[in-house]
């Protein structure tokens, strides 16, 4: 069967979805008596109009890249990991424990150590749902979402009862040692003589995230493990025929997925807050699902989608700050984007496919 050209599949479809989402958002803003044009200008100006805006946009995008990649790896094994939220929260605990209890004299040492801590804790949190799915057939969607709640409750307990410094009223850990603080993108720009994004949280983790995109691409499309993950995802009986163990690959895919979600903590816990606070993930685990969907489960797409959602997050914040559009509306706009680019993807894709087919047919007819 014919398909539409790749560019239409990868670029045109999400673009149209996005425009539809923007159109509907505009209607909503009109309905509450505000100017959509002003709103858009405020968002673009606030998120992309200055290095300050970019600093925040990139920071948010970094979170979404990790959680998006986490969803993607599981997806290729046909597992729907919606436990990114809990796995990222546990990753934060891993980071905090490493940084609080290991003497690490320099961030260059602290970064790999904290990454191991984050990935191991995130992966461990994904391991139980994975083994339940692989061995017992407990549905991964149910178990991972339950584990989000368990993670939240566990962190609550740990922060309040175990890690809270004596005398503090705040359910958070102590500050991490200053020697472990990551260089921000501002610092790095300054090192090569550029003034960029002062007082923004974007840090070196963004570069780690971009590197992760590349490595995950290599993993999925260039390694034997990736081949096995994709084969299992497409056909379990086929995988069994080919000598691929569904149990083993399911568990490995979920460990990688959980590890990636956990790695998000490098950005928000180690890079930004420099201590572990309650509810540090702030829904980034769920945004990862939309990012993976919109990014067509490809690292490059995820990178772009994460940037878009970073823009929405930062732009939305600016909107609340500078206009009388209430904060809740920003959530509506973000939801509309998720709805159109993720959930309603086929609504745009199918008519578009049909359009391309008829165009092809008529053009061929004309040649004859």
């Amino acid at each position, binding site marked *: *069967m*014919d398909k539409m050209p790749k560019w239409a599949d990868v670029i045109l479809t999400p673009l149209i979805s996005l425009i539809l989402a923007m159109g509907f958002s505009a209607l909503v803003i009109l309905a509450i008596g505000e100017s959509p044009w002003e709103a858009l200008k405020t968002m673009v100006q606030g998120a992309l109009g200055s290095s300050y805006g970019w600093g925040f946009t990139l920071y948010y995008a970094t979170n979404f890249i990790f959680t998006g990649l986490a969803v993607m790896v599981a997806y290729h094994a046909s597992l729907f990991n919606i436990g990114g939220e809990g796995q990222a929260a546990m990753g934060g605990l891993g980071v905090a424990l490493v940084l609080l209890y290991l003497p690490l004299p320099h961030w260059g040492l602290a970064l790999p150590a904290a990454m191991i801590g984050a990935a191991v804790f995130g992966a461990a949190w994904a391991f139980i749902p994975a083994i339940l799915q692989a061995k017992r057939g407990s549905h991964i969607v149910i178990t991972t979402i339950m584990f989000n709640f368990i993670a939240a409750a566990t962190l609550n307990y740990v922060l309040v009862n175990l890690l809270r410094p004596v005398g503090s009223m705040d359910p958070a850990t102590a500050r991490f040692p200053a020697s472990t603080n990551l260089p921000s993108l501002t610092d790095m720009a300054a090192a090569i003589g550029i003034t960029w994004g002062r007082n923004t949280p974007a840090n070196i983790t963004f570069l780690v995230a971009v590197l992760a995109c590349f490595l995950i691409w*290599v993993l999925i499309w*260039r*390694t*034997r493990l990736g*081949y*096995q993950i*994709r*084969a299992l995802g*497409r*056909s379990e*009986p*086929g995988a*069994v*025929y*080919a*000598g*691929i*163990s569904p149990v083993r690959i399911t568990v490995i895919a979920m460990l990688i997925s959980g590890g990636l979600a956990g790695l998000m903590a490098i950005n928000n816990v180690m890079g930004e807050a420099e201590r572990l606070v309650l509810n540090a993930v702030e829904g980034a685990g769920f945004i990862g699902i939309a990012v993976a969907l919109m990014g067509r489960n490809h690292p490059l797409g995820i990178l772009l989608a994460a940037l878009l959602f970073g823009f929405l997050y930062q732009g939305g914040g600016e909107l609340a700050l500078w206009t009388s559009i209430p904060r809740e509306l920003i959530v509506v706009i973000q939801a509309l984007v998720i709805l159109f680019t993720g959930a309603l993807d086929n609504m745009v894709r199918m008519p578009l496919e049909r359009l391309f*087919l008829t165009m*092809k*047919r008529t053009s*061929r007819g004309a040649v004859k």
Partner: protein
Amino acid sequence: MTTASDMLGGRSDTAAPAAIELRGISKAFGAVQANRDISLSVPRGTIHGIIGENGAGKSTLMSILYGFYKPDEGQILVGGRPISISDSQTAIRAGIGMVFQHFKLVQNFTVLENIILGVEDGALLRPSLSKARGVLKQLAAEYQLNVDPDEVVENLSVGHQQRVEILKALYRQADILILDEPTGVLTPAEADHLFRILKGLRDEGKTIILITHKLREIMEITDNVSVMRRGEMVASVRTAQTSPEQLAELMVGRKVLLNVDKQPARPQAPVLEVRGLTMVDIDGVERLRGIDLDIRAGEILGIAGVSGNGQTLLLEILGGYPGKGAKVSGAVQMNGGPVPLSGRGCGAGARRRDGVGHIPEDRQVEGLIMDFTAWENVAFGWHDAPEFNKGWLMDNVAIRRDAQAKMERFDVRPRDCHLAARNFSGGNQQKIVVAREIERNPDLLLIGQPTRGVDIGAIEFIHKQIVALRDAGKAILLVSVELDEILALSDRVAVMFDGRIMGERLPGQTTTGELGLLMAGITDTQNTPAEAGIPPETTHDLPEGRA
């Protein structure tokens, strides 16, 4: 065989309108022209066969008749009146009934409940059920369509389930019955019974369209036959005035060898020895009951049987992957060494390393990953092979080179290894699997349904490859529900029924009738296993070649 010419034109007056007539039907899916300008006229009271290779457009044409697809162009006339069939309800109202290859029955409903499903007369079931019971009794008497109306469908044999499908169509007052590959799942005896039913229906004035790829069936029961090739109707002839050879040539567009050329086998040392192989599935049901088999190097052991009698499980166990929760016992030896049947050392990967190749029964579910490209599929199952890997990474360049060469040697078309497996026709998909498994030069090749859904041209090619592997001194276990194929290829034939080997025969010294009895679980008195070691005669005609 009934003299078909007697029936031509049907019982009604020749001037009467055809039961169904197609005029210039065309249908395209994207760039693929599935049906091109098809015209066909089926007189009332005849059996009309439609044959063609896979992808010739038969199924599309029938789907148009049943309202699943709308034709791009053309006209359909039923009983002389043009109608537009927009959905299956319209088709049913126009008197068209369809019996699909895969039955559309609710497994845990009774026969009666299935029959009235969708045509209940009111909110209460009882009146409909009792009405259906009456009609059913009448139909059963008229057409030898006996089925217990109160039996739950899942307890019925496949042949009986098919009768329920036919009854469903008749209950909806179908005058035109379309059957899509109806004998694929039947034993020879069941198929014979089906043909008697169909002849009875025809004699009562019903019109029957039979879609099949089996030339023998066409010759046996149709009055007229139409041949499709690449979306076009290339010929419509009276069955009595044609021959299987001519039909095959029309289907493929060139002369086709209908029999397999092979020399007598020269079997050597045993490669596979199976003793008392028993398998109990996850539900505690004994599915294999003490299988004993020997396969020697340089011979083909064929396993005949109606599907679902344990052949699939046997292939899976020998291929290293017994189903989930299955308990396997017995002893299997390969090349003199024991083969572990469970735990560590049991697995498809381990079997491959021992020199087992496996062409699985269902290429779309097991043999290929349909969304993978052809080159990715060439590494499927062999992705651990050193020549496909470079350290941590897979050597995609080497895999592609290998894939392209295999596609060249096995004439896979289109010869584009970047195309997804699902975009190849059934025959070409199967060639990819066959190339992958045979070119590994396995000591033992397990083959399940090598030519299911494969066109004649590709069947010929695949059969040649299998025989060539045998002549290279390899052991081959062939499972097929096509008796013709078993008889043509095998050096020895074992018949499986209900998890047992019912008996072993030499293909030259048995008949389809005898094998058919064994397939139905009936052992005759002279049940002596075939003498091993006597090579069978050189060439076996496919029975369809005899007609």
